[in-house]
């Protein structure tokens, strides 16, 4: 039974995390009203990645569960990142796109 309660965050902690996510949401909406030009996508993605990191670590318990799951998540993200990089390299070097 010991293991049953080990991974539990208390309610307060979840509410604290919820507040943090709300603040980041407001921040990303606020950032969109400023014209950051080319940086806008980067800023929006950075905030979204931060929010996902918080959801993953605390709501999805990656911080408290066995580390092997975190490793699996990182491998998946690495695979996805590879797809992104290869696709963009491909498109950047094409000369005959419409």
């Amino acid at each position, binding site marked *: 039974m010991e293991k049953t*309660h080990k991974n539990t965050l208390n309610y307060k902690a979840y509410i604290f995390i919820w507040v943090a996510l*709300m603040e980041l*949401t407001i921040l990303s909406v606020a950032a969109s009203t400023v014209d950051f030009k080319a940086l806008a996508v980067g800023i*929006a993605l950075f905030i979204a990645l931060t929010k996902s990191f918080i959801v993953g670590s605390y709501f999805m318990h990656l911080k408290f569960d066995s580390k092997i799951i975190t490793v*699996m998540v990182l491998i998946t993200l690495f695979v996805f990142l590879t797809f992104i990089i290869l696709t963009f390299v491909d*498109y950047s070097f094409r000369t005959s796109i419409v």
Partner: protein
Amino acid sequence: MEQVITHQHPHRDDEASKMGMWLFLFTELLLFGGLFLVFSIYRYMNQKAFAAGGHELDVFIGTVNTIILITSSMTIAVSIAAIQQDKKKLSISLMVLTIFLAIIFLINKYFEWAHKFEHGLAPGTDSFLHLPKGEALFFLLYFFMTGLHALHVIAGSVFIGVIIFKVKNGTINSTNFVQHENAGLYWHLVDIIWIFLFPLFYLVH
């Protein structure tokens, strides 16, 4: 004592169950990841049209829906903490609240889509065919990605509904709650996908 427990649950392995759920989530992640990649490439190729498309979307409804989904993610997380502490009623109420929030999310989505359809932005109609190519791509991706996400919201709600039933009849309790955790994981994934859909479609112009 140890032997009795082993006998009661001959095949139970919570960690493997959770790992299986994560493996499924990876396939979901790559499914949406592929779509995000398609979106990025077309955005890169049609920057002006995608910016024009983004201006058509209602940032207010998008923000409200983001707040709703993040709140529902919090309620499902707390409902798991509640079942771990054997607070059955609290856990069930929080899951009912989660489903309630999911329904509000879908109602907002319905009005948003209906509004777009009224303005001739329904894929397959004549007015849609006459849109500039880049804008047509933007709205096709918008309907496809938010539609697929909405299907996941519905599936997640059904999953949570099953968990409510199982908590009620005691199959899920303070010593056996891995299915409840798995439903939570699915719900958080749906939330994470929206966390990316929202800025890319509504905010970045």
